[in-house]
């Protein structure tokens, strides 16, 4: 059964970035996903609601700073999704 949450390209890009890195800033994710601020916020919220990622909000020089990292559940789900893609490709 495919994970519908990760089937969305923007959410897949977010999770892939977070799997590859220890943590990523909001602006970096915006650049990687090539999406708007509003859209990225929505996708991050969805991933957070399903406990795939953790979001940390801090202030830096009086500006809000959002940093994200993948959770253990997110790592497992990504691995399952990736294995599914490989399996489907080989079939």
């Amino acid at each position: 059964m495919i994970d519908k949450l990760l089937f969305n390209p923007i959410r897949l890009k977010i999770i892939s970035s977070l799997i590859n890195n220890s943590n990523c800033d909001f602006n970096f994710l915006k650049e990687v996903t090539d999406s708007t601020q509003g859209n990225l916020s929505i996708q991050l919220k969805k991933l957070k609601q399903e406990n795939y990622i953790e979001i940390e909000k801090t202030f830096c020089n009086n500006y809000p700073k959002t940093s994200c990292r993948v959770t253990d559940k997110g790592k497992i789900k990504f691995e399952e999704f990736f294995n599914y893609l490989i399996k489907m490709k080989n079939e």
Partner: protein
Amino acid sequence: MNNIKKHIETIAGVIKSTKENLKPLSINFIFWGIFVNALSIFHYSFPSLVQSTKYSAILYWIISSITGLIFMVYYNIKTRKNIGYETHLSRVIKIIWIVFSVSWIYVIILSFFLENFNPVPSILFFLSLILIMTGLIIKFNPIIFGGIFLLLFTFYLNLNPGINLLLVNIVGVSLGMLLPGLSLFYSKSTNNSDR
């Protein structure tokens, strides 16, 4: 099927986009190489000034080193913010250098309480191990060789305790940090994710 291929390509594309940049690490090596050499040369040139009281030499080294440490921590935080992400590799390197800083503080505090305990050989020994680890992690031979040289040098230092420790510092840090740092800085592959 097209969707599957597209998704695999998306994952591969994202992974390729985050590359490990080793330039800031080389700046750390160069900074500490120059900084410790400058401190050693000043101490060597003006011993009466630095060693004017019982604790003045220790304070000279501690205050200078902590100032350098604060400066480099600030530089590293700023660089990390500009990049926007932290790779697993840079996180590991950061952790092992924090461990070295803790070891350094431990040895310095110990030297306050133990009479006739010189912290330099212990610090250089820890430094050599951390250098070898860093070199192995980033797969950069000059840093590994620098660390091995420093390890052998520390061994020699323990067998010949009469040797001038300031000259030891200069030779050890130059060959262990400054030259490998410069080599890393000018290396063509400082922006290589396959390291």
